[in-house]
């Protein structure tokens, strides 16, 4: 998995500009990778009901990824035949599930971002408007699910409070990347990144405060933070996840149920 970021870049799909295709790919990779991580909980969640809830969210995200990939090219090729460096997802979504608190913190951070972003895209008339209008209702629910759990874990027992606090702090440094430009240009219908970042911060802060959690300190972007997923640089555990995700298709090309 040492290819350079450019040599497996997919061609731009049907009638999309290069910038829009880059943005579509980034959003699709976010959805696919988080979907796979959530799928890893299947059969392992703390309760059967939560197992189903996480799988539901994973399936929503998978559906979004499929629509976005179709805008760019062949979905199977994009999902199963690209190398690690060709993926454009945020480093946040590839982070391992950890304990349940880590999964919930990751979901809170990402769903809040996705809800705000899709809400803005849905009101425009760009190539993502139709998808965003449909997806924003799903994402609303994902955010609510993460928020409900954050409140219960943060304001629960001493143990759950401590674990939730640890998770929120551990993942904080991955959150600045969400508001950096996607690729060279701005393929996201001119969504104001600065304003998006401010809305995100106030929304997440409100939830953490209600959950009696400390809002993590420290920079969310800059030299000492993580985040170059959009440039194809990923964290250590991503390669292993990808190997598992792509193994079947690579071993048995064209296999179907």
């Amino acid at each position, binding site marked *: 998995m040492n290819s350079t970021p450019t040599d497996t870049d997919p061609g731009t799909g049907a009638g999309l500009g290069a910038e829009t295709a880059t943005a579509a790919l980034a959003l699709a990779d976010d959805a696919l990778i988080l979907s796979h991580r959530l799928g890893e909980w299947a059969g392992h969640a703390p309760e*059967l*009901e939560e197992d*189903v809830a996480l799988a*539901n969210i994973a399936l929503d995200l998978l559906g979004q990824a499929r629509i976005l990939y179709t805008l760019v090219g062949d979905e199977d090729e994009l999902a199963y035949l690209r190398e690690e460096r060709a993926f454009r997802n945020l480093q946040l979504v590839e982070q391992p599930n950890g304990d349940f608190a880590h999964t919930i913190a990751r979901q809170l951070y990402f769903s809040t971002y996705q809800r705000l972003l899709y809400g803005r895209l849905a009101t425009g008339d760009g190539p993502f408007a139709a998808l965003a209008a449909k997806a924003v209702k799903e994402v609303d629910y994902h955010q609510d699910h993460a928020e409900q759990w954050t409140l*219960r874990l943060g304001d629960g027992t001493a143990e759950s409070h401590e674990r939730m606090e640890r998770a929120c702090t551990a993942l904080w440094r991955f959150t600045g990347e969400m508001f950096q430009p996607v690729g060279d240009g701005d393929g996201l219908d001119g969504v104001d990144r600065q304003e998006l970042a401010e809305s995100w911060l106030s929304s997440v802060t409100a939830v953490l405060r209600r959950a009696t959690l400390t809002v993590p300190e420290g920079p969310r972007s800059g030299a000492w933070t993580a985040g170059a997923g959009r440039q194809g640089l990923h964290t250590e555990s991503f390669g292993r996840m990808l190997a598992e995700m792509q193994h079947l298709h690579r071993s048995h090309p064209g296999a179907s149920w």
Partner: protein
Amino acid sequence: MSGSTQWPLWEVFVRSRRGLSHTHAGSLHAPDAEMALRNARDLYTRRSEGVSIWVVPSASVTASSPDEKDSFFEPAGDKPYRHPTFYEIPEGVRHL
């Protein structure tokens, strides 16, 4: 998932369309009522089965006892006069 720490049980009632009444759909575990509603949404309405959900703690349901079945229900069995079958329905009323 040990017995002592397991979440309480909730009964789920789903209204499938406006105008119909809520019907018992099943039961589930959840830590509180708000989460029970959300779990019910995921378990019982994911194929658009409903427009409204009620959740009730299973512990709050008082059920008739199977042991009393005979005295509870059987006396109604042989009283046909309780059914409106002795009335002549006038010609003009077609949709009673």
